[in-house]
């Protein structure tokens, strides 16, 4: 029997949903190229990229087709070779229509300067500034879901000192296994990616945080890092939302990012393992971010899978490859069950931030009966930010933005723990989102 010491975790709130990692044992398989890829130009936080191709142009795989507008933005590359088709607004996973470039796929003709071999390149030749420039060039964004441009995170504001790089291998969302599989199948590349990030940031300490339900990944990294100094692996308690940036910083470093502040304020920068792998590809292989691992899962899915998918592939292709859409499907979610977005259309393209496609059966798809608030306090107990969700709901409902702001409504990370635990099934997070929108609108006026 193993000795049980207390695993680290974050301090406030959190919930323990059933983790349902049914696709954890399924190796990553590349999905065949679709006939058409539809690539949105706004896949990231920040300004949409500016389109630099025209209908009818021939493009190669990896060729840039839209450039970043300003610093907080990201380049977009062709994820397949072929002819540019229509450029029009399509519905993406957010439920809104955004401009997207479609490519009618012909063959798979990559740009010449991209290294497509599997050889591990360990030597990091580039200087810190060149690394950041390369990451920006390759259009790398946070792949945990938020899709924040990675080069922005790496450009630490002047006057702030970063001493720790934290690698997020937590994957706290139930069902999702994309990061888990990547850690098992590409650990050496991820470690080189970590070294690249450490060099870019000028830090000598990195910690990989992995939740205890991925024991194989923890042991693998411990083995590979035995001789390394400066990179540590930390097994964390299974506790949602540990993959939240602020929660991970608290769990690993016991530091709190000040309200309204940035991780760099407490000397930490957090990158997801998927992002770290993409950074390895960008810096060592000159390969832009045009594909990612997507988990396709759900209780009734025939073959729960982890696919390597080109950006812009329609969701329906992934579903067919996983054995089709089960009869009892009531809801399809892009992302995990706690923070993912329900999609209404199966043609929605996979984007840089799409970590999974979850099929929820009909009997779990709708919300249950709502009761009066019992004042049980479970939402407060669950809030990882120490907020009072029931109270924020009331203030948002009344439109009392001033009070809501004083109660730190803007600190809400929208993890959904409050709505998850509410015994009365009250739509707490829905109202908190409404309240946050009200405040943002007032700011604009």
């Amino acid at each position, binding site marked *: 029997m193993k000795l049980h010491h207390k695993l680290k975790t974050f301090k406030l709130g959190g919930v323990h949903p059933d983790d349902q990692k049914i696709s954890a044992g399924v190796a990553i398989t590349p999905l065949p190229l679709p006939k058409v890829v539809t690539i949105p130009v706004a896949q990231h936080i920040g300004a949409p990229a500016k389109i630099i191709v025209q209908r009818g142009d021939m493009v190669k795989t990896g060729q840039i087709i839209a450039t970043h507008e300003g610093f907080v933005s990201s380049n977009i590359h062709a994820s397949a070779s072929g002819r540019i088709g229509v450029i029009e607004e399509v519905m993406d996973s957010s439920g809104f229509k955004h401009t997207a470039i479609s490519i009618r796929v012909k063959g798979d003709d990559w740009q010449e300067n991209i290294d497509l071999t599997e050889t591990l390149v360990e030597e990091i030749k580039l200087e810190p500034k060149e690394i950041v420039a390369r990451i920006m060039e390759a259009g790398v964004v946070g792949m945990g879901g938020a899709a924040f441009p990675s080069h922005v995170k790496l450009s630490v504001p002047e006057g702030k000192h970063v001493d720790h790089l934290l690698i997020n291998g937590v994957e706290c969302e139930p069902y999702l296994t994309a990061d888990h599989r990547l850690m098992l199948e590409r650990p050496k590349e991820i470690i080189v990616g970590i070294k690249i990030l450490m060099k870019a940031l000028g830090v000598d300490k990195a910690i990989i945080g992995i939740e205890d339900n991925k024991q194989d990944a923890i042991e693998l990294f411990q083995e590979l890092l035995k001789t390394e100094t400066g990179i540590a692996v930390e097994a964390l308690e299974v506790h949602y939302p540990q993959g939240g940036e*602020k929660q991970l910083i608290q769990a690993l470093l016991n530091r*709190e990012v*000040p309200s309204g502040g940035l991780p760099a304020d407490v000397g930490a920068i957090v990158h997801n393992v998927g992002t770290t792998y993409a950074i390895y590809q960008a810096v060592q292989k000159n390969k832009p971010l045009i594909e990612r691992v997507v988990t396709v899962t759900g209780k009734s899915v025939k073959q729960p899978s982890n696919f390597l998918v080109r950006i812009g592939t329609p969701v329906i292709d992934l579903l067919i490859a996983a054995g089709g859409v089960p009869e009892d499907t009531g809801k399809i979610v892009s992302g995990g069950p706690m923070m993912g977005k329900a*999609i*209404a259309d199966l043609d929605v393209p996979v984007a840089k931030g799409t970590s999974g496609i979850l099929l929820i059966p009909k009997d779990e798809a709708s919300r249950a009966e709502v*009761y009066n608030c019992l004042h049980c306090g479970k939402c407060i107990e669950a809030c*990882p930010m120490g907020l009072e969700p029931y109270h924020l709901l009331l203030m948002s409902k009344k439109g009392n933005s001033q009070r809501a702001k004083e109660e730190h409504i803007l600190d809400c990370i929208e993890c959904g723990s409050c709505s998850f635990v509410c015994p009365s099934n009250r739509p707490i997070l829905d109202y908190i989102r409404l309240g946050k929108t009200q405040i943002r609108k007032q700011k604009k006026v």
Partner: protein
Amino acid sequence: MSAGLLTVSPSPHIHTELTVPQIMRGVIFAMIPALLFSIYNFGIGALYVTGLSVLFCVAIEYAIARYLLNRAASIYDGSAIITGMLLAFNVPSNLPWHIILIGSAVAIGIGKMSFGGLGNNPFNPALVGRVFLLLSFPVQMTSWPVQGATFSLDAVTSATPLGILKEGIRSGTPVDTLLSEMPSYTDFFFGLQAGSLGEMSAFALLLGLIYMLYRKIITWHIPVSMLVTIVVMTGIFWLIDPTRYASPLFHLLTGGVMLGAVFMATDYVTSPFTHRGMLIFGFGIGVLTVLIRLFGSYPEGVSFAILIMNAFVPMINKFAKEPRYGVVKEKRK
């Protein structure tokens, strides 16, 4: 498949299994040991009083929701059953049916529905009913059947240990002498004492507490803070003068302390939200209970203490906030 058939709603897309009906069922389940013990101790009278009380509470809530408020009957969540059971737990097991009816009407009608039903009442409905009955029918509410007098609705009555203690101290008898005439602490713990229907057996109530903690229906904060406060406070007085004050163990095992700590004070609706608030709330109940018991004119004070602290809940909620992530100093307003 047609995409038009998909449900679209904001996250989260999964929900905990512990919803209102499950919680209410859990609480009812947690009360069963105490009820069974009561039936064993007082016979069929206990079942009769509990059954009537539950029946009246549910019927009154149904009638008010349906015919006075013109809304869907809210009885299916199970909260009226709990109020009925708790009201019964707080009265003698030989209470006549018309008094139970009045108690139920006050508990549900005034205590709960007049504020808008489940979740909106500031005071514990069962205690509102209980205190109303205590003030209106003092004789019937304080003549407890002797324990062990099974299968009879007209049992011989006796005073509670707390009542005997209060009278005895008033007449100047030392506590030791009074206690020597009472059952042992072990008997108190298992419930061989006179008292209200559901309050005698600390053992049965603790079983209920353990179950509710295990199911994560309640947290430890209110019961522990209330019981610790009572032990510490009565302990101090006992150390000062053991001839005039009974030991902490006596106070812990007699009267409504256990019932109050496990089922009455932990009522979600009428207790604070935060763990800090819960600790303050339990502390306040403990202090008030001891003050009433030792210095008030009533022998027992748990019901009053809980009702008084119920009134402070909004204030406690305002000041006893949880620590916030990333907020160092909360400005005082």
